[in-house]
């Protein structure tokens, strides 16, 4: 079985401009992965499947991951020019000041593919692709034309995460019903207010129940008149 570096070199030799990056996994599992550029993903996938040495003919697992926008607070040291009176003379002096800066790291959606080889009995080879952002540019190329086992799994990722797989033959929701609007596995998903009666409501449930009752109370009184 080739290492991740060797697979990366093989991909770059076979598909010029593939844009492969190694993603190091710090855990003891040692399952490092490759990040593919979306532009060449289908060609790379075909290469991985058809290459005689790799022969990754079995796509085991397709997963979505949500990486929401992250606000990063960091302390930066900045040199500023401050005018000071030193020994009765006014001077401009450089002073190092610590500043707290906040910056927004844009989030994205990610799809992860786990490959094995049935012919060579090795694996896993893991690769991942990222969307540009979480709202408007959520397209990734579908790999269902390469491995049929992605058919239902990509539908599931589309359903629960909202990644649109271009080139998928039948991209519909898999688990949620068709008229459902949101994508429940996203980290910022908020459940709809479909409050159900609970006899011993407490804590969060009680709070939700009270909010729900307050919201429907005016309508009910209106209906009674």
């Amino acid at each position, binding site marked *: 079985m080739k290492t991740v570096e060797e697979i990366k070199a093989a991909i770059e030799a076979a598909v010029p401009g593939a844009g492969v990056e190694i993603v190091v*996994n*710090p*855990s*003891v*599992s040692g*399952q490092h992965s490759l990040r593919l550029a979306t532009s060449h993903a289908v060609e790379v996938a075909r290469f991985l499947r058809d290459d005689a040495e790799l022969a990754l*003919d*079995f*796509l*085991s*697992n397709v*997963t979505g*991951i949500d990486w929401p926008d992250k606000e990063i607070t960091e302390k930066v040291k900045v040199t500023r020019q401050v005018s000071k009176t030193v020994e009765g003379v006014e001077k401009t002096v450089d002073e190092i000041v610590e500043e707290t800066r906040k910056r927004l790291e844009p989030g994205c959606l990610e799809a*992860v593919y*786990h490959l094995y080889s*049935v012919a060579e*009995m090795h694996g*896993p080879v*893991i690769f991942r692709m990222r969307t540009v952002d979480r709202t408007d540019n959520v397209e990734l190329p579908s790999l269902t*034309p390469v*491995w*049929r*086992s*992605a*058919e*239902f*799994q990509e539908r599931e990722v*589309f*359903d*629960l995460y909202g990644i*649109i797989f271009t080139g998928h*033959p*039948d*991209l*519909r*929701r*898999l*688990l*949620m*019903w*068709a*008229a*459902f*609007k949101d994508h*429940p*596995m996203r980290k910022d*998903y908020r459940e709809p207010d479909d409050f159900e009666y609970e006899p011993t409501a407490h804590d969060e449930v009680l709070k939700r129940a009270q909010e729900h009752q307050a919201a429907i109370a005016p309508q009910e009184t209106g209906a009674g008149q």
Partner: protein
Amino acid sequence: MTGPVSQESGELKIDDSLVPECEGPGAPDYSPVSVERPDSWNRPALIQPSGDGELLEVAMGPHHPSTHGVFRMDVALDGERVIRLRPVFGYLHRNHEKIAEGVSYLASMPYTDRLDYICPITNNWAYALAVEKLTGQEVPERAEYLRVILGELTRFQNHASSIGFLIQEMGASGTPLMYAFREREKILDLFEKLTGARMMVNYMRFGGCRVDASPAWLDQTRKVVAGLPEFVDEFERLLATNEILMARTQGVGVLKADLAVNAGVTGPMLRASGVNYDIRKVDGYGIYNRFNFRVPLGDHGDVYDRFMIRLLEMRESIAILEQALKDIPGGPVMDPKAKLRGFRPKPGEAYGRIEAPKGELGFYLISDGGPNPYRYRIRPPSLINLTVLEDMCLGHDVADVVLIFGSVDIVLGEVDR
């Protein structure tokens, strides 16, 4: 829901008021009988309607006894012949993966019992294995033996009851299923004695097993295992050469090896198509490389082969059980360094998989260093094995669809999660 379909356009007339409003890729597709497909890549050639009658759309399920739970197949029929089949999922969806992201690692362990509720032990095992990969925990030898013993008992009872259900759906009402359940009861009694529950066992922990087996339990297990070969012989004598069973299953629902691999089919279904791929042999997880057992392979990939592979795998399970029960050493069943409370794996990810009775069951975990998993994904063999359901069913009769579906061996708790 049945309705007439116009033969000329091949379209189904639907009352617009019933159709929910939605657009885009997630919009419902209400043209199940349309013979056109967006992309016919790697799929069987569609069967053209004979043209001498009306097409009929039938929703098989969700509340149909042969669907093993709540599952729907929208089939388009030309007479009795299936010309299009579309599975509909989600009736049992409770988003287990989302729930697991909100609780600690250990708190998901009892929930895994509810995935494939026929085989809770192997679900526990796959999850424990993935977490052990993530943290690098060791499992004591006695615990590994107990995992193998319970895992193979689970495989045995799953295959026995799955064959029983298959024959039941064929019309042999009662007898074979009750034979299978008689043995299953003995095995569930063992589970109950060891773990306190017949089905929702919650037995494994990260780095071992929850409770040790007493010598009395091991003796009882040896007694039960000693009786299993007789049951398999009886089952095989009763069924394997039965004329009706052979007529109904041979040459029905054929799955070719290359499509099976490409579609990610795993487990007995893959091996029935003649592909030698058993994760117990390939990965050798746990201590499986210590045992002597063979991997039975099919030749035709039809329903009969799938039935026969399960029967043969039951014999191999007995062989593993006999070796494991002979060699089981003493010692602890939990890694003394294992932490149950305040369990926070280092950041990173791991994918662990086992050969569950239904196929490859995998867990993919991402840790961000917190007490809850950042991402918790189950690779469900039952769902992915259904990818090829339409391919196997096209051209067969409705009664065969029930058999082909039964031979896939699914549990809806795992399909919908």
